[in-house]
């Protein structure tokens, strides 16, 4: 039997498992929502039609705002979690790791706040 440490048990194993599970659950959500978003915007709407007025029209409907908000949160967190793993593969020094993870965290907070702010508070002029 191993000697027991008095230190608080490290939780990284469970966090890593949660991140692994989140990647897969968000993948299933994105598989439907992101692919639908692309087909809808590029086939139903048409890329030439993308304008302030078109998005203002879509955001009249709370359902579309909710769709875009869910896509923002799941899409970005799936990507950020993937990027964390990519960075771990290429950045080995402890200082570099801290810098890279901090930058990724700041970018994540910024984009989620800006995106959620505009989708929730937008008022058509």
């Amino acid at each position, binding site marked *: 039997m191993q000697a027991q440490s008095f230190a608080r048990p490290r939780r990284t194993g469970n966090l890593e498992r949660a991140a692994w599970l989140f990647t*897969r659950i968000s*993948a299933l959500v*994105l*598989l439907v929502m*992101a*692919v639908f978003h*692309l*087909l809808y915007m*590029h*086939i139903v709407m*048409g*890329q*030439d039609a*993308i*304008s*302030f*007025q078109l*998005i*203002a029209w879509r*955001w009249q409907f709370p359902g579309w705002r909710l769709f*875009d908000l869910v896509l*923002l949160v799941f*899409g*970005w967190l799936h*990507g*950020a979690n*993937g*990027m964390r793993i*990519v960075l771990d*593969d*290429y*950045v*080995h020094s402890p200082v570099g790791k801290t810098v890279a993870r901090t930058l990724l965290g700041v*970018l994540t907070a910024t*984009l989620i706040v*800006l*995106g959620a*702010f*505009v*989708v929730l*508070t*937008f008022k058509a*002029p």
Partner: protein
Amino acid sequence: MAAVTSFFRAVTYRGREGQIAWMLHRVTGVGVFVFLALHILNIFLMAFPSNVFNSVAALYHNVLFELATIFGLYLGVLYHALNGIRVMIVDFWPGAGKYQVPLWRVQLVIFVLAFVPSAAVMLARMF
């Protein structure tokens, strides 16, 4: 430096199908990540008067950009999605690992069947 070593290993290591599938998954993932960051910032411009968003949206109407969204973004998202499904199949049913090469080939066939018609409609929609 680690990235250079990693790139060197990537082109000299003969990992065959599994390695190619993994590399494409990583390249498409990082590509979509970069696009998504710019896309969220772009949509944030909706908080300003309409001419601000519309001046940036002019880029969306550029033919080269439209081609890039079909053969870069859409192709990347679709590959990443289908490869992710294959990874999950092997994750939750480890026995499927024995058939990972045929699974990858089936995945490529599904990719072509899904991408070609939808990309053709998107191309037709451009003109």
